């Protein structure tokens, strides 16, 4: 099926991180452990980006998600104290959620992924050509007038609005 080379071993390694971390996030009693499991999962995703020849996105993933967002989560866990010994982690309809999630996974797998891109599907061997675009092309794409400069500028506005909004919402008005 797939040859056992360094890429397959790396893929297995990173997928264990990603999925193991994800399972840890949704089943942890201690929210601090949950945040650390999220960091493990994000490392796995960064590894996937490296495997998929997107080194810039891998570095940005580590820098933004792990270096900033995960730390934000840890701060939030610490500021809302009493969250480290949760007595009940799940709400009343957890079994229904589990059933729905498993059905969703089955539908995605059997109905969409395997028939089209699986071994006997309609499009099994995607043309992974040797002409892979580099980080320079990403930089050009983000500022090129024909490409993505408008979403780029709008996202900077979005971030400014989010920053101001977060500061205003979380500010302590009793001072």
């Amino acid at each position, binding site marked *: 099926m797939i040859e056992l080379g360094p890429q397959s071993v790396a893929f297995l390694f990173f997928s264990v991180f990603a*999925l193991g971390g994800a399972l840890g996030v949704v089943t942890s009693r201690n929210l601090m452990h949950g945040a650390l499991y999220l960091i493990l999962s994000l490392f796995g995703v960064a590894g996937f980006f490296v495997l998929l020849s997107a080194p810039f996105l891998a570095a940005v993933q580590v820098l933004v998600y792990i270096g900033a967002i995960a730390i934000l989560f840890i701060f939030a866990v610490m500021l809302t104290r009493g969250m480290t010994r949760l007595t009940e982690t799940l709400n009343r309809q957890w079994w229904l959620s589990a059933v729905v999630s498993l059905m969703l996974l089955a539908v995605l797998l059997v109905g969409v992924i395997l028939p089209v891109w699986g071994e006997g599907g309609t499009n099994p061997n995607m043309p992974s050509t040797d002409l892979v675009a580099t980080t320079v092309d990403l930089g050009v794409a983000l500022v090129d007038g024909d490409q993505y400069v408008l979403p780029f500028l709008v996202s900077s506005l979005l971030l400014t609005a989010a920053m101001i909004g977060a500061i205003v919402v979380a500010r302590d008005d009793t001072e």
Partner: protein
Amino acid sequence: MVPLWMFLLVAAAMFVIGAYGVMARRNAIAILLSVELMLNAVNINLVAFWRYVTPENMSGQAFAAFVFVIAAAEAAIGLAIVIAIYRSRRSVVVEDVNLLRG
């Protein structure tokens, strides 16, 4: 190379685990953590499709970069709201936030 459907499988599994976390957990911060998992699964999908279908065109990676931006903004504001709610109600269990006033 690893076939495309394995990347898609991992991304789908991560998405489904995140969906279960959003639907089944009581704590608001745990729900936000699960939303981050779902956004990461989407990113894996985007970059995997970019690499295997159109690696010469940077649309996939640009899209993934914008997903990063949106996830960061959403995490910041979500957590600010959680902290504000904690300050007034001393609880972050989402089932307790069921009154429109007070």
